[in-house]
């Protein structure tokens, strides 16, 4: 195995493109090194992207947020401004593993690992985030939900990698929230999760996005759930309708972390609580 730590995105793309064996991008490494340790992958080349200055940048403004691929999750929580703009994205990113993991893991890495239970992905999708993808042919920008194809599979070409995710401009009374269920309070993988992003006007939901995690091979956007919220002040009937829509959208599996029945039921519970939290954060009151 070779280890390279290029200092430009171009050099990184060239290294990935010219490797004939198995190449992997190393950002935080909290998933990659585990898979190497378990013998699940045996890379011929590791490209560490943390020495690329632009990828270590976190830009936060109301007009937009850019989270570089090498920015550890802990830095998101350290930005008061980001926390006030996108509290749901930050809480999702900060739920990934322990403080030790937070010091390394990245939102982009969480996305590229393509786990159905990834914490930050539903929140990013709910936020309308885009991934900035670089490759030898230049850059492209795609919606985050287009990146993950299934467990462990992404739409990236072998010589491409994501340099950052960007969050759109924040306007009006908006807020997001992310909640997951885990048996332990920390150090756990989401059994089921929900992200909700709302914009209000005079306490009434103008736009909404509801995304569920760990209930299908990829994160699931639930338009019917969003629709149930729009035009309401999150009264019980609206919430019940949203919960029903969420449960209908679930297509989970039975595994060591949860059952179909449990995931389906608790997906609704998480969505309801996340919606209420986002609503309150956006200034709504019930």
């Amino acid at each position, binding site marked *: 195995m070779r280890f390279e730590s290029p200092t430009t995105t171009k050099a990184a793309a060239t290294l990935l493109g010219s490797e004939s064996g198995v190449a992997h991008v190393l950002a935080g490494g909290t998933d990659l090194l585990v898979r*190497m340790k378990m013998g699940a992958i045996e890379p011929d080349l*590791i490209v*560490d992207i943390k020495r690329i200055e632009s990828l270590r940048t976190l830009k936060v403004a109301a007009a937009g947020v850019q989270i570089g691929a090498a920015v550890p999750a802990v830095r998101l929580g350290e930005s008061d401004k980001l926390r006030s703009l996108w509290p749901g994205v930050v809480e999702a990113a900060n739920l990934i593993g322990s403080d*030790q*993991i937070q010091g390394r893991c990245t939102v982009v890495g969480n996305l590229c690992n393509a786990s159905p239970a990834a914490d930050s992905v539903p929140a990013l999708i709910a936020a309308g985030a885009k991934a900035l993808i670089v490759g030898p042919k230049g850059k492209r920008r795609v919606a985050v939900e287009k990146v993950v194809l299934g467990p462990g599979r992404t739409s990236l070409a072998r010589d491409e990698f994501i340099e950052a995710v960007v969050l759109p401009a924040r306007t009006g009374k908006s807020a997001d929230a992310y909640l997951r269920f885990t048996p332990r309070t*920390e150090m756990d993988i989401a059994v089921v999760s929900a992200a909700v992003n709302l914009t209000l006007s005079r306490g009434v939901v103008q736009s909404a996005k509801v995304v569920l995690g760990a209930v299908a091979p990829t994160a699931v956007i639930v338009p019917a759930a969003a629709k149930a919220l729009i035009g309401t002040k999150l009264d019980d009937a609206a919430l019940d309708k949203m919960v029903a829509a969420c449960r209908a959208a679930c297509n989970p599996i039975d595994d060591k972390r949860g059952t179909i029945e449990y995931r389906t039921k608790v997906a609704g519970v998480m969505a309801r609580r996340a919606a209420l939290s986002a609503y309150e954060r956006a200034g709504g009151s019930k």
Partner: protein
Amino acid sequence: MNGVTVSAKVNGDAVQYVCPADESLLDVLRNRLNLTGVKEGCGTGDCGACSITLDGRLVCACLVLGAEAEGREIGTVEGLSEGGQLHPLQEAFIEKAALQCGICTPGFLVAAKSLLERNPNPSEEEIRYALAGNLCRCTGYDKIVRAVQSAAKMMRRGKKSAR
């Protein structure tokens, strides 16, 4: 396997080592630099026994490649006490009986130090969440949390009197 030559600083001292490209920093610290105070409990980032700081950030050494440490500053439990004086956390762990078998202790000390640097006066809940990445199977965490509270108090007092 290509060897990678790395220059880094460990506990303030310059070190150089050669390691295979896929060797973890944990293995480098333990097997090449003889810093066996850094413990391996799982090798997958789930127990925190190998907690170290990398450029001041708390990380698990098992989830860092040795090759990545080029030019970085590494802090381990061995660097906690200065000039023959135990760190207040080390004192408190002994005095409050916060260790039984002691295998998790180095990781807890490094993580707790990192917490108190960020937050000199943490609540019980903040301590519990900050240390959630460190598993202990002996103590039920009770005396560990109390030791961190006690050390935080000592350190705050020390800072005041130093002023």
